[in-house]
């Protein structure tokens, strides 16, 4: 009922924690069995280790939060040596998010990461808004995104899902450009660029000044973008942005997503992913749906 089949990913259910909200799973493994998850999208890997931005790195907003972590990670080699072996113990596919500053960084990181047997697919992060050279420049111009996608595809031994930025004028043009360049799927959406200003200090709350907005506040934007894009591309979409419960998952499927990722909600309720997975069958039954796949894009197919 819940199983979904996407390029490189045979998932027992369509629910996975989103990149950056779950680190490499060790912390959440103390709270529940990660085998329950459909997949795990691990924190962005860059070629070299990065410390990230100064603090404060997070700020709450109405219905959401801003973050500017800045791609802090120990680098692709450390991740392969120290994080992936632990994840190999689970019967849960790993999707590795990769980021970089230059095309060559992406290509080398993709090459290394895609060779690891634990990694079933790559998520190409061309949309991190929080570092100057964190990929956002690759994610806002369709031709640039397409060129990078093609180069990563050329070296990757695993399917490549391109994570799109919502900070663009024409999301459909972006999606079509990376599809034509060979992307196997899309992740939509990354965070929206935002800011909060402290009334006392009269300065931005985040040390990085701007941050990426996530949480329930951005869900309608993601739903709209997936609704538009899924009608214009043939590749599957992993939907994300503000998902908190099973109803939200169903809404994403109706919009056109074929799987979903849960981000900020993990911080609100650390057990949210297994809760959603357990809620879904009952919801589908009450809708008279025998497989969640039947719901993909129903909002525009009807």
């Amino acid at each position: 009922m819940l199983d979904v089949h996407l390029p490189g990913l045979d998932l027992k259910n369509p629910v996975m924690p989103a990149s950056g909200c779950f680190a490499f799973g060790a912390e959440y493994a103390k709270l529940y069995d990660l085998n329950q998850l459909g997949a795990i999208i691990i924190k962005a890997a860059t070629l070299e280790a990065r410390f990230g931005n100064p603090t404060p790195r997070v700020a709450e907003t109405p219905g959401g939060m801003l973050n500017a972590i800045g791609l802090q990670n120990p680098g692709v080699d450390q991740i392969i040596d120290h994080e992936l072996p632990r994840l190999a113990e689970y019967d849960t596919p790993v999707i590795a998010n990769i980021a970089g500053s230059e095309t060559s960084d992406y290509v080398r990181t993709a090459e290394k990461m895609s060779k690891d047997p634990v990694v079933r697919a790559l998520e190409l992060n061309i949309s991190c808004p929080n570092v100057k050279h964190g990929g956002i420049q690759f994610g806002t111009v369709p031709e640039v995104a397409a060129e990078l996608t093609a180069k990563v595809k050329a070296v990757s031994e695993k399917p490549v899902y391109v994570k799109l930025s919502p900070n663009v004028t024409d999301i459909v043009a972006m999606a079509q450009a990376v599809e034509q360049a060979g992307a196997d799927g899309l992740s939509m959406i990354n965070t929206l660029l935002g800011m909060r200003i402290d009334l006392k200090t009269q300065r931005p709350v985040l040390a990085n000044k701007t941050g990426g907005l996530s949480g329930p506040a951005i869900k309608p934007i993601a739903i709209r973008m997936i609704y538009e894009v899924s009608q214009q591309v043939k590749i599957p979409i992993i939907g994300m942005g503000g998902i908190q419960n099973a109803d939200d998952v169903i809404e994403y499927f109706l919009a056109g997503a074929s799987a979903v990722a849960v981000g900020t909600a993990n911080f609100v309720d650390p057990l949210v992913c297994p809760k959603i997975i357990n809620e879904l069958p009952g919801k589908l039954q009450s809708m008279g749906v025998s497989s969640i796949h039947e719901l993909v894009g129903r909002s525009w197919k009807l």
Partner: protein
Amino acid sequence: MIQEDMTVLSHREIADGIFELKLHGKIPAEISEPGQFVHVRVGGSSGSAAPLLRRPISICTADLGHQSLTLIYRSIGLGTELLSHAVEGKKIDVFGPLGHGFPVDAVPEGGRALMIGGGVGVPPLFGLSQMLADKGVQVTHVLGFRSEKDIFYENEFAELGETIILTEDGTNGRAGRVTDVLKGIDFDTAYACGPLPMLKAVQTMIGEKPLYLSMEQRMGCGIGACLACVVHTTDRDDGKGYRRVCCDGPVFRAGEVELC
């Protein structure tokens, strides 16, 4: 580390905007050290948008026999203001205990401990002092507040050991700051919790003797996954170069992390 709906046993304002909240549930049995904290979801059923994130609040004391814990917090923003309206019997979504607290064994048997607290940094020191006093450690408290209206637990601390109260405006106790009185006090191990400038000043003054500091930082997940609350290590050769306040801390040995 569990998530549960705890029941409010009592809730009262003990100083100006400072609330003492007693909760009942299973989390107290999980607490391993004084100085750990809980992550509290306020006003939050899914569907209500604000406030979205949990609020980290330090544990003041835990009572295993009664399965209760006491939190003391300042009502200062959207989340804590909403929390301050929780009445007896109400259920509150609590996740914890989280983090590493104060090492009780860092004081030699029959030794002397100094506790230095500022404002809402004072509560976790009370639980710590209780445990140390139970062990036979001689405890001294130096507690700084802005003004008389902000003082709480003065008598509770005094029952455990010598307690020096300071207020910035001189309306109660001595006028001044905690660092004004540290020089004459003899101790084996010191523990501090309070605003960053206070921690910095205390660290400079204490010098050689063992000192443990409880840090504060904006948090996301509370369990070490999101990397919102990182601080640099002072050791440049440290393998990671950073610590997470939520799970490696909030208590650190003085000198382990940068205070900035």
